[in-house]
């Protein structure tokens, strides 16, 4: 705990300085729009006023996010390994991947609503779509960048099938897969605000979206801060995991 504070003392200090400046500016600068720049105190009040709603929101959001993100993770990695290893399939379909991956997830909303049976599954699918591409493309990239040495080694040991995948391809491409997964995780949170634009009545994204529709930015900011805390916690856990999985790279030298 003490080491935590020691490591993050400057982090916390910067946060405090930022809040102080924010407080001063919103209080004394008249040219500041009070609607979109509420005072920190207002935000803190909003925070405590809405804490129940925020917490319920996390629970509902997780019900969408977890299936969506993990579904994307699994299919992204499996698909990425497949297309990374199969040159011909990759060559054939890569143009489609390039074409489909940047389509804004918002545009899928009518289709997921029309096709999928419930709002929940529609929302999950949106998260899935958004989270899928980074990890999928990251995995393909990672497989393509595997050092020739490792592949030669595997070939000469006659490694095939699951052993080849699990013991060689997966670890060797892990740096890129995990970097893609981390983008995917961020993406999932981002897509939440889109996926909760319809059919939801609570959620981390819903909260932000809802109050921003009402231009109640003190609530919006409270929501962003609350979400950020959760996202940072998830991300730090993910980074820890990443560091463990990539122990054989230089990352371990990062000393955390």
């Amino acid at each position: 705990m003490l080491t935590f504070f020691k490591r993050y003392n400057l982090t916390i200090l910067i946060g405090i300085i930022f809040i102080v400046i924010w407080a001063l500016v919103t209080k004394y600068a008249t040219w500041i729009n009070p609607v979109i720049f509420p005072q920190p105190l207002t935000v803190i009040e909003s925070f405590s006023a809405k804490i129940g709603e925020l917490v319920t929101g996390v629970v509902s959001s997780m019900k969408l996010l977890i299936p969506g993100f993990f579904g994307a993770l699994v299919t992204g990695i499996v698909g990425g390994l497949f297309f990374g290893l199969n040159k011909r399939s990759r060559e054939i379909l890569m143009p489609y991947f390039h074409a489909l991956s940047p389509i804004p997830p918002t545009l899928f909303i009518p289709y997921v609503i029309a096709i999928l049976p419930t709002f929940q599954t529609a929302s999950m699918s949106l998260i899935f779509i958004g989270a899928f591409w980074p990890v999928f493309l990251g995995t393909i990239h990672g497989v393509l960048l595997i050092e020739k040495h490792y592949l030669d080694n595997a070939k000469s040991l006659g490694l095939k099938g699951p052993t080849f995948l699990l013991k060689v391809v997966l670890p060797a491409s892990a740096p890129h897969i995990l970097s893609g997964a981390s983008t995917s995780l961020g993406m999932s949170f981002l897509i939440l605000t889109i996926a909760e634009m319809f059919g939801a009545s609570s959620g981390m994204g819903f909260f932000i979206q809802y109050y921003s529709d009402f231009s109640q930015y003190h609530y919006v900011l409270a929501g962003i801060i609350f979400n950020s805390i959760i996202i940072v916690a998830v991300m730090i856990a993910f980074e820890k995991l990443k560091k463990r999985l990539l122990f054989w790279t230089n990352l371990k030298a990062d000393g955390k």
Partner: protein
Amino acid sequence: MVQLLERPVPQQNPISAEDSTEYKTKIKVQHIDFSYDATTKILNNIQLEVKEGEFLVFMGPSGCGKSTLLRMMAGLEPFSNGNIEINDKSVKETHPDCGVVFQDYSLFPWLTAQANVMLALKQRNKKMPKKELAHIAEQYLTLVHLGHAVKKYPGQMSGGMKQRAAIARALSYGSDLLLMDEPFGALDPVTRIQLQDLLVQISAEQKRTVVFVTHDVDEAIYLADRIVIFAPGKNGAVTKSIQVPIEKKGTDRKKLFENMEFRAFRESLLNEMNEQIVNSLRTEIADGAGI
């Protein structure tokens, strides 16, 4: 000196039972021309036959194509001109069954020494329980004096240790063909001698065919049945086979090295190589191909 492990695959050499004096051909290299790119030719019409159970050593100046030919034999370098057959099957079609030690002894850095060896072991012993695999892997590592480092990752090993782990892995793979690219290059002289003896013992007892690259003349003569010298030339390297004329069986190492016959052969070998390098330096000036 070192007790050999039981071979994981029992019926490795059915023909060894016949005890026939007429050797079967293990590797057949036919008309191999090779180049990585259009500008430099690496290998020039290489012809080579390796008998089953033979211990073949490649020597030659640095950069002349020894590793390249070895990698081609291992089915790792695609080529179009000529053919290489192992057990009468073209390496282009069937991936050859062989244990390989690469020049850069590349282990998988995300696996411990033991897990690296287990990976090779598992290929022949699909059904063997993990515990037993681990045990055998440890025995192989002990064989190369790495018994204390089974749990170390490649990143935590010294150059020589990595090399020995790679040797253990190749041995444990249990193929009757071993392709080894300067495997003892980073070993101290004492360990090196021990591993040389180990290799001689294994290849003799189990009739494994070995193709071995080294720069150490003594090592080459001590190990080889036949030495193939690579000579770089304008159109890529050509090879020249020299049968080692010395009877080594049962001879004490030290005595052997003091043997006049041995020393004469050693001298002639060195002269041969020296000449080639001078030649190649001369050609280099003329046309840019080189050692």
